Each structure stands twice: as structure tokens, then as C-alpha cells.
């Protein structure tokens, strides 16, 4: 372990780390543009210059290995003067059109100018080299060549992460500019990532363009619920509307990337019509709104009655692999302890097989549910029925009388989604008594005996277990619509109505109970789940 000194502070670097990496690990920030933790090192922007004793010139911290006994400085006047000089060069031809630039507020040029620059530009406006603005690069990205500082992060992303190499520099000297060959659109399914990594406003998001200024937005750490990879994300929202979702760095799952489909998936969430209130089918076969209290009591007594009349095997708990671990935990507890049910299922189409199967070589997985592993580990895949088709058969033959069904539509559409939803509808139609728990409205729900609205992702706190078995936390960004409540709260209510002495009142309490009673979650803390997640191990 090489030990070196940075700004009079003794730092122990990991072998092979450069000065900037060791500094970031120890909370010392060195200004940089081209360095990115998940891209190969390039050393072209010259912003990270530091002074190292016995070296004649300043040296870039991103390319210099930290070695034993090295004495480096990043905060003296010589370094600051050099950084200021670099910044002044970068800004020579920069348009500084921050008022119309979507990056403003999170722009590294603005930030470093306030810390290191504060110089007056010597270049008159009409002498600046003009380049092309508003270049259309397809569905995800809009390019502004003038704002580019030629850091090559985007070039390296397409060369080394996706391996498709769409972007490159053209021209020389002042006229050196970034672009794609003949302005061809970026069709890569990961191209939205270059918007995240571009340190300035050269690459901006087509979807987020002009939607909001970033300083008005509130951020909530979350995960993408588009597939079983569960990329760490940050959701930016205001007044109950999500404006964008961007990747959050998690070296264990997604590095700094996420796929474009996932990036845009929140739009579907906001388009679908929601169920406003709990509903119950009355004698005339029509559903009428009821209160939550009535719903809990009637569901509980009806389920118990069926279980005592037709036996415990006549009741099924049908989970969704998109529900949170907490909801599934209380669901299982209610069904097995209070009703005595033995049938538990969640599989619409062999999710337990596809959960780890890759859709491509980077992030995406075939299973479009975020919590399939959680559903398996919490006991929703017993072999009695063998998936939803078995359940429908059992219901048609009269062996199965009642079921509690959670259904979340997948946020990323794939062929076959409608068929899967039709299977759920078939199950509901075949049952004598069905309780459907769902956030979004659908036609088939009219057949349900009781319909309970629940919060969707971003409206509730929850943990999800991804394909690796990693438990990750997703925060709450907004309130649920209408009377909807988080799914765990529905089961907490049912448990309480059924005579359980304990009433779970917050997400933290449910997580704690789950941790105590399910062995694989014993060692997981909420802090880990909030950061990079923790593996649920036997």
C-alpha cells in the first residue's frame, strides 16, 4: 500500500491508484473534466494538475500513480494559477450561453469558474469561433458543438463501454469539434449515458430538454425498476411530477450507466390511469367505493370463511415480482399465519428462469421485474401449482376458490405483456373470490371482488432484490395518488384486522421485522441498502 502526502495529509492509496483516485477516496476534490471513474484514463483536459515534489513541472493527478513517499499539493498558488489558466483557455471559444443551456446549475465549467476562474474574458464576442448548435443526434441526445470542451468522455464511452464508437472529434485546432459521422443519429440503447457524463452542456437530453431548470428539482435516490438488474438511479422531481431519471454510480451493479429504456420508463408511470379508491363488488355485481377499514375487515372475514369451508388449499397468494420485499414479507406473513394458505405463486412466465439471463452484454436482463429474486426468496415460488397457468386450471376445476393477487404492469414493454396480463384476468374470472391489489386501472379489474389501490414505485419506500440477490433501497419521491397506500401498509392493515397485536406503521419497522424473521436478510442494514446494496445470502 503506497503511502503518500497530499496537501500535508497522509494518504494510503490502493496499489495502482492514481493521485486523483486516492484523493477522491479520501474526500479531497481535485478539479477535473476528462477523468471518470468508469472510463479509461485519458489525461487530456489538464484541469487536475498538481505539484509533486522533485518533479520539474506540474503533473496531471489522473495519470500519475500514487507512489510511496510522494509529496503532492493540489491547493497552492502555483496549482491554482495553472488551473485558472486552463479554465481560461477552455472558455476562449465557449459561448457561455448559460441562460439557454440545460446544463446550467450542474455544469462543471460554472462550478470551477466560481472557484478557480473569476477572470474577465479577454476575447471579444465576435472573435469567438462559432460552431454548430442544436445538432440532432437522434432520440436521446442533442449536441451543441460550441459548448464542448473536448474532454473525450463521450468518445471513450462509445469506444470502451458499448464498443460501438459512434462519436469522434473532427477538425484541428480551434475548429476541432465533436460529432458523429455525417451527423448520424445515435441508435445505441445506452446513448443517454453520454448526457450524464458530459461535464458541460454539449450533450443534452432530448427528453429533458427545456423541461425544467435543474435547481428547481428535488432529487431522490432510487433504483430503476425496469428489469432485474436494478440499476441505481436518481429521480429528479418537482410537485409530484418526475422530470428525469439519471444513473447513480454503483460500482457493484451498474457502474455509472443505465439503459435508455429504463431512463425513460418513468413516463409510462405518469401516463397510466390510477385506481383512486378501494372498491368492493356488491350484490348487483357492480363495484362501489368503500373505506380502507371496511375493505380490511371484509377481505379478512371472507378469506377466513373460504379457508374454513373449503380448506387451506383453496386460497392462493399471488404476488408480483415488482412489489417490494417489505410488501411480499407482510403478504406472506398474513396469508400463511392468518389464513393458513399453502399456495404461493408469482410466476407469469418462468421469471425464476429468466431473472439472470442477459438481454445484451452490458446491463439489460430478460426479466422485466425488479424483485423476482425477492419473490423467490420470500417463498412465492412453491411448486404445488407451477405458475399462473396451473393456478388458472386449479381455479377452473374448483380446487382453488380465492386468491389475493398483486399486479404491477411492467414499466418496460416487451412482446407478450398483454398475454401475461390476460392470464391474470383469466385467473380473476375463474375464481369465486378475488382480491386484486394494483396501482393502475385495467378493464379486467371489474371482475374482482375487491380492488385495492396501492402506491407505485417512487411513491413508496421499499427494497428490491436484484438478479445478484442484492437488496437495494428505493426512496419515496412523491405521495401516492388518491387513497392509494404502499402495498406493505395494506397487508399491515389486514394483519391488524385479523387480530395481530402489532401494527406496522413505517417502512423502517417493516424492514426491521423482515430482517429479524427472514434469515437471508439478517446481515443487511438499511444504510448498505441505501448506498450500493447488500447481498442477501443464506
Amino acid at each position, binding site marked *: 500500500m503506497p503511502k503518500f502526502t497530499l496537501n500535508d495529509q497522509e494518504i494510503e492509496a490502493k496499489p495502482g491508484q492514481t493521485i486523483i483516485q486516492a484523493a477522491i477516496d479520501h474526500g479531497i476534490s481535485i478539479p477535473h473534466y476528462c477523468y471518470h471513474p468508469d472510463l479509461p484514463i485519458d489525461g487530456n483536459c489538464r484541469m487536475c494538475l498538481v505539484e509533486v515534489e522533485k518533479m520539474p513541472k506540474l503533473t496531471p493527478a489522473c495519470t500519475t500513480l500514487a507512489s510511496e513517499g510522494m509529496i503532492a499539493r493540489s491547493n497552492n498558488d502555483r496549482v491554482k494559477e495553472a488551473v485558472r489558466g486552463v479554465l481560461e483557455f477552455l472558455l476562449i471559444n465557449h459561448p457561455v*450561453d*448559460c*441562460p*439557454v443551456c440545460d446544463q446550467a446549475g450542474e455544469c462543471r465549467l460554472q462550478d470551477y469558474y466560481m472557484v478557480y476562474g473569476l477572470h474577465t474574458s479577454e476575447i471579444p464576442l465576435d472573435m469567438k469561433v462559432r460552431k*454548430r*448548435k*442544436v445538432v440532432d443526434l437522434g432520440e436521446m441526445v442533442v449536441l451543441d458543438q460550441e459548448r464542448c470542451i473536448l474532454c473525450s468522455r463521450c468518445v471513450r464511452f462509445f469506444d470502451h463501454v458499448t464498443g460501438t464508437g459512434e462519436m469522434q472529434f473532427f477538425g484541428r485546432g480551434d475548429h476541432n469539434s465533436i460529432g458523429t459521422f455525417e451527423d448520424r443519429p445515435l441508435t445505441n440503447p445506452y446513448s443517454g449515458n453520454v448526457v450524464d457524463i458530459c461535464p458541460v452542456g454539449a450533450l443534452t437530453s432530448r427528453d429533458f*430538454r*427545456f423541461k425544467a*431548470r435543474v*435547481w*428547481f428539482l428535488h432529487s431522490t435516490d432510487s433504483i430503476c425498476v425496469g428489469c432485474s438488474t436494478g440499476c441505481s438511479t436518481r429521480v429528479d422531481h418537482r410537485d409530484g411530477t418526475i422530470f428525469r431519471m439519471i444513473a447513480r454510480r454503483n460500482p457493484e451493479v451498474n457502474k455509472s450507466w443505465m439503459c435508455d429504456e429504463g431512463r425513460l420508463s418513468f413516463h409510462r408511470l405518469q401516463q397510466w390511469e390510477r385506481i383512486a379508491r378501494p372498491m368492493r363488488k356488491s350484490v348487483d355485481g357492480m363495484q362501489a367505493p368503500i373505506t380502507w377499514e371496511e375493505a380490511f375487515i371484509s377481505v379478512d372475514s371472507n378469506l377466513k370463511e373460504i379457508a374454513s369451508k373449503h380448506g387451506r388449499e383453496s386460497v392462493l397468494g399471488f404476488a408480483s415480482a415488482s412489489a417490494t420485499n417489505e410488501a411480499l414479507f407482510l403478504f406472506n406473513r398474513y396469508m400463511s399465519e392468518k389464513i393458513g394458505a399453502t399456495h404461493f405463486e408469482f410466476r407469469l412466465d418462468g421469471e425464476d428462469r429468466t431473472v439472470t439471463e442477459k438481454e445484451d452484454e452490458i446491463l439489460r436482463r430478460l426479466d422485466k421485474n425488479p424483485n423476482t429474486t425477492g419473490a423467490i426468496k420470500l417463498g412465492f415460488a412453491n411448486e404445488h401449482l407451477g405458475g399462473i397457468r396451473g393456478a388458472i386450471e386449479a381455479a377452473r376445476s374448483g380446487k382453488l376458490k380465492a386468491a389475493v393477487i398483486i399486479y404491477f404492469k411492467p414499466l418496460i414493454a416487451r412482446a407478450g405483456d398483454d398475454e401475461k396480463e390476460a392470464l391474470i384476468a383469466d385467473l380473476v374470472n375463474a375464481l369465486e373470490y378475488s382480491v386484486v391489489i394494483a396501482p393502475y386501472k385495467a378493464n379486467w379489474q371489474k371482475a374482482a371482488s375487491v380492488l385495492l389501490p396501492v402506491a407505485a414505485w417512487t411513491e413508496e419506500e421499499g427494497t428490491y432484490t436484484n438478479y445478484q440477490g442484492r437488496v437495494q433501497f428505493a426512496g419515496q419521491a412523491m405521495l401516492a395518488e388518491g387513497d392509494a397506500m404502499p402495498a406493505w401498509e395494506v397487508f399491515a392493515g389486514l394483519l391488524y384486522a385479523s387480530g395481530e397485536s402489532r401494527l406496522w406503521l413505517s417502512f423502517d419497522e417493516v424492514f426491521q421485522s423482515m430482517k429479524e424473521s427472514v434469515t437471508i436478510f439478517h446481515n443487511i442494514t438499511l444504510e448498505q441498502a441505501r448506498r450500493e446494496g447488500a447481498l442477501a445470502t443464506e
Partner: protein
Amino acid sequence: MKRPAITINVSDIAERETSFAKEMFAPLAGMGLTFTRMMQNVSGKIRPTISYPEERRSYSERYRGAHILTAREDGSPRCVACYMCATACPADCIYIEPGEHPDPHIEKYPTRFEIDMLRCVFCGFCVDACPEEAIIMSRETEICAFSRDETIWGIERLMRRPELAEFGLGYRPNAELVDSRLAFVPKEKLIMSMPNSITLKEKAEMIPHVTFDPRK
């Protein structure tokens, strides 16, 4: 060191001298003053009363009244929908919806720009914040309306309300620097005497019927 006491010059005003004759004369002197004022009013020498609203007092050049959105040469708003004004606004009363401008060098423009005039506290922060001199203030104070909806002013009203000429320009700290234009059409009777587009640098007298200026 002991500080010396501060001496303040106070003029000694003696008790008003009075006498029987003065006391008898005082009401007459008062009536004389009243009479002189009456004659001055009747003859039109001074007029402390004005016939509002046909006549108005003239406010200072820095008066912060209802906002004006200034225009480019072609009459479109100068505003680039940067939200600086909305960010600075302490009353949170500016609502902007941006759109994609066909000219890539302008890039962004407001498809909607609304100020809720009843929420506005006329602090002028929006004018200070604007990097484009796209929003300035007028000396217009009358923001009466029959319904709440009418007090929310949109782009058209902020830019081109015809009554602008009657009030004149207000707070515009960068007037000398910027060449932004006003693009309004004055009311009919004024068309002859008023230009329908002036730049802020021009010193246009825009308040034709103010007759009383207390400073003069």
C-alpha cells in the same frame, strides 16, 4: 481618557413674543393666506388637486410598476425563457413554459410567460436578474380587473398593451447599455404623436397628459 461631552448646537428659540395687537391680527393674517391661495387656484397659478384619472402625477423614472416584456427587432420577445426572473422572484409569481426556437442561435423562447399581478410585490428583482434586458418595468399602477383570471398577464399583454404610452417606462437599470425595443401599438388618438417602436436608449417622452409635477 475621559471623553469630552458632545456639544450640539441648539439654537435658542425664545418663547414666541406676543402682544394684544398681534393676537387680534392673527386671524386676519390667516384669512389673508387662505384668500391668496384661493386666488392662486382660481387664476390657475398652482393646482394641488388634479382630475384623476384624466390627469396623473408623474412618477420617477425608477418607478416599479407593471412589467413590460421587451422585443427584438422583429417584434418577438427578447426573453429566452432562462427562468432567472422566476428563480429570483420572492413571490413565486412568474410562470414560464419554454419552447424550441427555430433559430439555433436563439434556441429557446417562452411559449407562455405569465405574471400573476396580484401576487407580485413589485420588488423589481426579476428586472435585476434578467440577463437579456427582456423584462423591465413601467410606471403603470392600475391593475384593476373584474375577475381573478384577468390579473394574470400573458405575453401579449406584457409586451403590447396599448395603454403603455400613457404611463411610460419605469425601472430599467441597464437602459443605457442595451438596445431592446418596445413593440406596442399606442391607443388610436396617440398614433400620430407616438412611435410604435422605440429603443430603450431613446429618451421618449411617453406621458403626454401628466400636467402636474410636484417637483417643478
